[in-house]
């Protein structure tokens, strides 16, 4: 079943034209005729060039930004027309983990308040109380639960990112948009968070839009992959197709540029492990 349906989405930003203040306004097309679907329980990865419009697409899909043209449907309803109760439900069902963690966390709130705020707005009291609820969530994303009364500034970049993840998961959403959500995590914590995301998908049927530059991670958890370049989706296909038989030139360049650990060192390490 299709959960999110994006059709012909375009976004133009007004930019200053050349020639000072009085110059005619020009516009820059950040997202250009983008269409895709996200099915229930599916992970769609969006990869691509820096500045190709991935975050902009994500923000429009979450209705944090209005498109210039095109439509976004969530569960069959046009989200641009949702108001009142419907909009509140949409805001709950679709959660975003933002690319820049610190800017998306209120510096004056403690972790506990940040994580439980969406529940508080809805008047839901988490079972077991706020404290226990927050502690459990923090533990799941690999944070020390004793730090639930700390403020965002008292965390490291990767820890702040996990607070964002915990906040998104707190309300039991249907779709989580992860914009570079695991980029600041070390590989072990990253693996833990990815496992958590995948388990939630299996158990509760979460769908994900997973924006990332780490193609190895994308390959681990995506069902389908969209490749963006200069505002357009240049390739969209199943994971195995995109990674196995990429059709587009840009996709091929991208895959070829993936840095690898020196294979010789890797081999020697594996050998030495066998010995010790």
């Amino acid at each position, binding site marked *: 079943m299709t959960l999110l349906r994006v059709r012909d989405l375009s*976004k*133009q*930003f*007004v930019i200053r034209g050349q020639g000072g203040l009085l110059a005619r*306004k020009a*516009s820059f097309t950040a997202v250009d005729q983008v269409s895709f679907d996200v099915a229930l329980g599916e992970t769609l990865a969006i990869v691509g060039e820096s500045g190709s419009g991935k975050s902009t697409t994500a923000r429009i899909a979450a209705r944090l*930004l*209005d498109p*210039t043209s095109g439509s976004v449907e969530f569960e069959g309803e046009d989200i641009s027309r949702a108001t009142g109760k419907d909009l509140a439900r949409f805001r709950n069902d679709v959660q975003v983990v933002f690319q820049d963690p*610190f800017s998306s966390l209120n*510096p*004056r709130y403690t972790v506990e308040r940040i994580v439980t705020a969406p529940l508080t707005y809805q008047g839901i009291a988490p079972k077991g109380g706020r404290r226990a609820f927050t502690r459990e969530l923090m533990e799941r994303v690999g944070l020390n639960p004793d730090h639930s009364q700390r403020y965002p*500034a008292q965390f490291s970049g990767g820890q702040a990112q996990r607070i964002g993840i915990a906040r998104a998961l707190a309300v039991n959403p249907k779709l989580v948009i992860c914009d570079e959500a695991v980029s600041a995590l070390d590989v072990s914590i990253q693996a833990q968070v990815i496992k958590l995301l995948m388990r939630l998908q299996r158990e509760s049927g979460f769908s994900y839009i997973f924006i990332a530059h780490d193609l190895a991670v994308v390959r681990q958890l995506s069902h389908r992959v969209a490749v963006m370049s200069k505002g357009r989706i240049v390739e969209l296909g199943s994971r195995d197709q995109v990674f196995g038989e990429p059709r587009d030139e840009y996709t091929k360049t991208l895959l070829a540029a993936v840095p690898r650990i020196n294979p010789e060192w890797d081999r020697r390490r594996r050998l030495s492990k066998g010995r010790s």
Partner: protein
Amino acid sequence: MTRYVIGRLGGVVVILLAVCLFTYLIFFKLSPDPAVMICGKTCTPDRIDSIRDVLGLNQPLLTQFWEFLRGIVAGRDYGTVHCSAPCLGYSFQTNESVWNMLTTRLPVSITVAVGAAVLWLLAGVAGGLISAIKQGTWWDRSAMALALTGVSVPNYVLALVLQYVLVVKLQVLPFPAAPAFADNPVLWFESYLMPWTVLAVGYACLYARLTRANVIDTLAENFLRTARAKGLSRPLILRRHALRPALTPITTIFGMDFAGLLGGALITETVFGLNGIGKLAADSIAKNDQPVIMAVTLLAAFFVVVGNVVVDLVYTALDPRVRVTSS
């Protein structure tokens, strides 16, 4: 952008119309019959009738309201008397044109508001800034304690104390009289000094606390760390990177406070006997002079509503993030 401004101005007109209607209903319909009031002691039913006729009080309510609005835009006639363009009627008490009353008193209120605003901005922002920079020091603590007291002292108490001490006891200042600036600049300044101060103290204390809180929050921002990492000098960091983000939200509050004051500082003007809009309001309410009440209410509403729009536009200009960027 132009479209946005036009849209906002349309909103202003609608709100002002609503305020008009509302005040009109309250003051003309729910209060005692104006004809009886104007008529005074030596009254006959005949006279009341003719007054009602001249004022148009016998017509249906909506017609009356319409006449009132038309009077503001195009002027109107009361019997044989013509009341020209921005016509707000005549005072029941003095028979003066209400519009004239407003225009003669508005300069006083503006003088009071502008002077006070300059004072409280200077004192409040500077005080708050210094407190924030010296956070936790002796200076900070005493300044903030003072600010807390200052906020809670009522205006009229301060006014009476100042007046008693400076005018009556020490005689360093004349009794406020609102002379024209051109006639005697020194006397003008001396007369307004006390009203300005009295009005400014409360605001200054409030603004000092706001400024301090905002600057402290800004100093903890990551971008301030970046500014330090670049090796910028401390004054430049404070002036450029801390002050603008900290003060931008304050401009919004300032705009609203200032707009509110333009509509008259009731207590201060009354206590110091300054003939401004505030005193006019107080007098007209005391005497139930309906056209004047109506006019001062409208004027205050006008300043607040227009102030609101101006504040939004200024904020948009100051904060790049809210500038309209999408087509």
